[in-house]
């Protein structure tokens, strides 16, 4: 890299050298504004999006029964209760399943794994899995949970699929958090004659928890917002009861998708109202996690 810089510089002085600093600084200022503009465009779009969704959906959201009733064929009647229940159950299950497994895998890779070809393979594997599209996870869930294990298109299949989807992100971020724990902490613990697991459980994990939580939030809120894999696994668009573990299920993103695709005009408002609920759910999730992270890091 340095050679290409010196080449550029040696090519430059061909004509008369003029510093022209003022003009160069002005160009610099203009570009600073362009960079800032580029950064703001996304934020402006986000603001417009939130405003638009609230404008379209707030009225429907506040209409009686929207949160507490089951869906209806008519755009201005019924509600999204089964979808809310479905999403909360899915989110809870994903946390129960993927957090212990993800943190366990991260601990193994960081604390226990020997340096060998097969641990390299696991590592490469995890980072590749993080890039597999969600709809492909849907195919995996369909094949393994629906047909091989015979759960059918039930909530459990959806939850397991979403868990596999969120595992790689949890593993990657948990590993980073564990790697950031200073080695002196481990040495001090071993110096007291503790076993490896005692050191990991009592010292490494508590220290790493804030970082691990970040990964958990990111991946679980992604799982709650994911629709593609659930469509493939077989989420339904209409339920008249709260979904149970082994029953057919719906979730908020699926409900939103269904509302958007209905041609009658009022359904767009219902979709917007459901989007508000979904965004609030994700916000609450993130808020809780940020609170926990704050708490744990001051505790430390």
């Amino acid at each position: 890299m340095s050679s290409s810089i010196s080449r550029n510089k040696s090519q430059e002085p061909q004509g008369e050298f003029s510093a022209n600093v003022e003009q160069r600084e002005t160009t610099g200022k203009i570009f600073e504004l362009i960079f800032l503009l580029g950064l703001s465009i996304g934020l402006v779009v986000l603001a417009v999006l939130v405003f638009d969704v609230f404008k379209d959906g707030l009225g429907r959201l506040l209409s009686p029964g929207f949160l507490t009733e089951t869906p209806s064929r008519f755009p201005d009647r019924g509600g999204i209760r089964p979808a809310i229940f479905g999403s909360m159950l899915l989110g809870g299950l994903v946390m129960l399943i993927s957090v212990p497994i993800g943190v366990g895998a991260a601990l193994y890779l960081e604390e226990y794994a020997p340096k060998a070809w097969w641990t390299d393979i696991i590592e490469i594997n995890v980072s590749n899995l993080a890039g597999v599209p969600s709809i492909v996870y849907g195919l995996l869930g369909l094949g393994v949970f629906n047909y091989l294990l015979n759960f059918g298109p039930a909530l459990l299949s959806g939850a397991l699929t979403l868990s596999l989807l969120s595992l790689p992100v949890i593993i990657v971020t948990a590993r980073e958090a564990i790697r950031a724990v200073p080695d002196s902490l481990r040495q001090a613990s071993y110096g007291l004659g503790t076993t490896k697991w005692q050191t990991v459980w009592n010292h490494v994990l508590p220290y790493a928890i804030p970082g691990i939580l970040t990964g958990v939030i990111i991946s679980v809120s992604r799982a709650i917002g994911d629709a593609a894999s659930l469509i493939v696994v077989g989420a339904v668009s209409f339920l008249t009861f709260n979904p149970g573990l082994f029953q057919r299920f719906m979730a908020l993103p699926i409900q939103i998708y269904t509302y958007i695709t209905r041609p009658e005009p009022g359904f767009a408002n219902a979709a917007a109202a459901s989007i508000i609920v979904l965004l609030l759910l994700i916000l609450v999730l993130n808020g809780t996690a940020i609170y926990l992270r704050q708490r744990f890091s001051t505790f430390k």
Partner: protein
Amino acid sequence: MQNANFSNEFNREYRRSLEKAASDDIQEKIIETLLFCCALISVLTTFGIVFIIFRVTFDFFQEVSFAQFFLDTKWTPLFAEKHFGIWPLINGTLMTTVIAMLVAIPLGLCSAIYLAEYASPKVAAILRPAVELLGGVPTVVYGYFALLFVTPVLRSFLPLEIFNALSAGLMMGIMISPTVGSISLDAIQSVPRSLREGAYAIGVTKLETIFKVVLPAALSGIAASIILGISRAVGETMTVLIAAGQEPRISLNPFQSVETMTAYMAQISGGDSPRGSVNYNTLYAVGAVLFLITLGLNIVSHWISNRYKEKYD
């Protein structure tokens, strides 16, 4: 008397602690094995994906030839007159991806450069999570916004179809810009200060330092982020399913409705093709193509970022 008692007690304690150490050892082994199993699940996931997708894809190619799949230019598996040419789906995917990247690359790079080089640490601490929020919004929401806000606005001055590649691509670009941005930001931040100071020392302005020193030095990280962004755009489903439509065609007109590979997969899953039929198996065949494309892109991205990573360490 008391002394003997004490030494007895001590011996007993000592023996107990030795036994405890032995059982600790077994416990340790069990724990290590459990943790290993956790790590193994990721490998099993990959095996599962590969096995399930390619087993059904194999069935598919028993009935449909490679030539029909890769040489035909029509995709009509659900019609009476069946064609299985994948190209219209690849065309749709390519078009929405190109539009998305035309948005995501400039936006991502601008935010990365601004956050790394211009923003004060305090401002960056607020702006960075704010920008990353864009990537955390569920994609179905972007689909809603593309179809019901962006398309009507664009239609007021462009001859757009209701479902079109342009709106879907634009929103997908906004969604992916944080992916490009945050990896580029890491790359830019890992360029050592000494390089910048060297540039300033010879009287170069800040902007020139960025364009001629910092960005070239961070180029590998930026390239990796762009390829990862492409991979995300190729695999994104809900936005294109909702806003880009379901009309497989070969065309370069972004104002028209197209169908991407992912949108087709979602469409066939929601339909009622019986399991095992050729129609149903197209889901896996298209899934296999999608998986291979994104896998290839991810590997290239990792390869680039690993290859140049430790240059300045």
